[in-house]
């Protein structure tokens, strides 16, 4: 048992449990807090995968900015709690879980059947080098400048769109 295995199981277990708890809580605030827990443990998994920059960005952007936005909207709208999970439309919910479980079993079968680990062995030096902010910036500003600019423009458009949509009256 080396450290990577232990960390994977801790973070993976927390992420999976937090995801399940998120979709089964009635109160949206508690669901949002579980989603924050899920995203933080994903950041830990990214660290074990040697993706330092993305792990930090995950905490700042996802667990920070986006979830604060969600919590603010929940605070503004005060949505009432939903009914207990299986109280309304139990048939639809059981069907949805059956579909999700079936697709999950299919995916597990495909993943084990194709067994990508035969081809992909962990190359520690290469993965440590690839995760540094230097390597990412090099790639980003050399080969992916156009998508980068497009992403900036998308953020500007989204900001203007959000302001327009949330305004009281559009004249």
């Amino acid at each position: 048992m080396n450290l990577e295995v232990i960390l994977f199981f801790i973070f993976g277990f927390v992420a999976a449990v937090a995801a399940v708890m998120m979709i089964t809580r009635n109160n949206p605030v508690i669901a949002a807090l579980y989603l924050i827990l899920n995203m933080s443990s994903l950041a830990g998994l990214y660290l074990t995968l040697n993706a330092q920059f993305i792990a930090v960005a995950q905490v700042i952007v996802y667990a920070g900015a986006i979830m604060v936005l969600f919590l603010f909207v929940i605070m503004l709208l005060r949505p009432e709690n939903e009914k207990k999970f299986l109280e309304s439309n139990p048939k639809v919910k059981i069907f949805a879980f059956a579909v999700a479980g079936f697709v999950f079993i299919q995916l597990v079968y495909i993943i084990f059947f194709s067994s990508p680990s035969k081809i992909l062995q962990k190359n520690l030096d290469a993965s440590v080098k690839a995760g540094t902010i230097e390597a990412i910036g090099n790639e980003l500003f050399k080969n992916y400048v156009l998508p980068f600019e497009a992403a900036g423009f998308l953020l500007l458009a989204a900001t203007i769109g959000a302001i327009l949509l949330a305004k009281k009256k559009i004249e």
Partner: protein
Amino acid sequence: MTITIEYYLILSAFMFLVGVAGVLTRRNAIVVFMSIELMLNSANLTLIAFASFMGSSVGQLFVFFVMTVAAAEAAVGLAIIIAIFRNKLTVNIDEINILKW
């Protein structure tokens, strides 16, 4: 025992399908939105796992772009939810049926 890429892929598949189940079963529009974020996150985990195992930084770059798109999507989507709430006074997606006839 070593952690191969299958472990990450299965965790990611599990989280994605939990997100799918959340979208299909929850009736609160904000929680449906959070389930969509969960699905985006699981796709990110797959991208990072492959990028790390292949020793390439392009996958991590795409996660960066996915985060940008998710931020834009969350801002616009929550603004739409606020606009709907102003008209219908509810965020329950069973009661929002203005496009139905």
